[in-house]
């Protein structure tokens, strides 16, 4: 396959947590490259560093050593407000623990990144409705996260990530709480997004889900290896 432009390049990235004098190497000289329009699954056992990797790729956390090049520019070169802008416009993040605002309704949660994009009311309404419909939660729009099941909350989180039409979608176990039918529906959404040109990085335990991606990357104790 003719490779396009690399969008995410990690080189020898390490992330070390210090807990009570002990070092936890969550990422140990991890390197990987994701190209524009890629569909990558990251597989690894619990505690292997998947979420840590995702946070760094999603510009929420920074590496202790190594370089991360996003869109051709080293991440250190971006200012704080540029990073906020990137997170807002370029990246859609589905968190492992959803990270929804408990005080807001599903609708308002999905709307939030659009507000930060300074979109007008009508456009926001349109996109929120479309996103909720795509995850099948139109009838739960006015519910707050505490009034939703785990799987429904997960779908709200997916809807929030989709609403901005991100060019990079980072999803941390987006199907973890879903039955296989709903899980497949979400995967269908991701595939559509991928066909529309988006880059997708998906974290999963589920080999069946991983098999649907174009590439698989395995992570073990902070070490990254390509499968194929």
């Amino acid at each position, binding site marked *: 396959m003719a490779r396009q432009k690399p969008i995410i390049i990690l080189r020898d990235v390490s992330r070390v947590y210090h807990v009570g004098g002990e070092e936890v190497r969550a990422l140990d000289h991890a390197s990987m490259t994701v190209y524009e329009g890629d569909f990558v699954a990251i597989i690894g056992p619990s505690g292997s560093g998947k979420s840590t990797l995702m946070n760094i790729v999603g510009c929420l956390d920074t590496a202790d050593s190594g370089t991360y090049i996003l869109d051709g520019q080293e991440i250190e070169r971006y200012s704080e407000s540029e990073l*906020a802008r990137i*997170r*807002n416009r370029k990246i859609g*993040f589905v968190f492992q623990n959803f*990270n929804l605002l408990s*005080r807001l309704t599903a609708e308002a949660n999905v709307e939030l990144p659009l507000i930060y*994009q300074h979109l007008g009311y009508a456009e926001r309404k349109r996109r929120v409705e479309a996103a909720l419909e795509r995850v099948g939660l139109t009838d739960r729009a006015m519910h707050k996260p505490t009034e939703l099941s785990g799987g429904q909350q997960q779908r709200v989180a997916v809807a929030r990530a989709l609403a901005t039409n991100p060019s990079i979608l980072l999803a941390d176990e987006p199907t973890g709480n879903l039955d296989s039918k709903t899980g497949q529906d979400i995967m269908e959404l991701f595939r559509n997004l991928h066909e529309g040109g988006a880059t997708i990085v998906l974290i999963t335990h589920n080999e069946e889900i991983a098999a649907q991606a174009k590439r698989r990357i395995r992570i073990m104790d902070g070490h990254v290896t390509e499968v194929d």
Partner: protein
Amino acid sequence: MLLQSIKMAWESVRSNKMRSFLTMLGIIIGVMALVVMVSLVNGATGAVTDRISSLGSDLLSVSVTDDKGVPLRLEDLDQLTEDETIAAVAPSGSMYANVKHGYTEVFASVTGTTASYFPIEGLNLDEGRTLKTVDVENAAYVAVLSANAAEKLFSGDNAIGEKITINGRAFTVVGTLEENDSLMSSMFASYAVYVPFTVESRMAGQPYISSFVASAVGDTDVAEKALAELLRARFSRDDDAYSIINMSSIASALDEVTGTLSLLLGGIAAISLLVGGIGIMNIMLVSVTERTKEIGIRKAIGAGRGTILMQFLIEALMLSLFGCIFGLLVSALILAIISSIAGSITFSMSLDVVLLAVGFSSAIGLIFGLYPANQAAKKHPIDALRYEG
């Protein structure tokens, strides 16, 4: 964006009503203290200075305590007006007496004086005439009544030409005065009767002038000095022999006192507003810590530092402004109640005070909101996301 920040701030103020109210309480009390105290001082000052100025601020009131064997007579007073700074002089011999018309009797102050007394004191004639020089020279038994005395004795009927008795002696009423709300008359609310000086001095057994009033041509203070010089010369250079009360200096002294008073009270109120501001800061800091996770989520999905700062700053501003509005409403209520109790004086909030309160509250909201808002804005997204309240 501003609208969205306002909306978000409003959501958070609304979703925690009790806490928001308690946070506002400091500002509410501060604004109340400021507005009520300043309005009360202003109202009282306004009422008092109104009365002083209606009394005539160019009035000099003199009393002689020790005549040194050279008591003042009417001719001596006339001589005083020869000084170019003194416009007019009139004796004000005073006694209290029972004044009677038919079966109606009042206890009134009886002032023995001359024609010049009325313009000096700013008393205006309502009906009839005032005292004439011939009345004084002939010691005529004529009287001029204050409005309330005429009303009391004649209850609205014509008084001019009627007879009254003062301590049993018959007098003819020649004039009645207009209502007068000068300081003295309202302070004592007494009935006043004015008769020729010669008559009053005979009745009181006081042939000499122990007190008189004078008005100035120009500057009252200059006239006061000239008058003092003349009196010193007469009473063997003894300053304790006489005393001069200068109404304009009373007015300016009063101004000074009330000015200091409102500054002092305003200062106290400002301090309580400041305390209210610290309350806001305190609660906002708690709220920022509590909402660390929320801040993390907002930052993760793209809220910049400025956006978060704005949201929390607007929240602080909203709390202080709502507190201010609430405080103003309560103040209006309190002032209305005080006014209805006080009766004669109405206390109202001036626009100045309202603007001062709003300005001060906003400043306090901004200043004390800035630190917590900045604490929120500078949180690192991943640390904030991991935070578990």
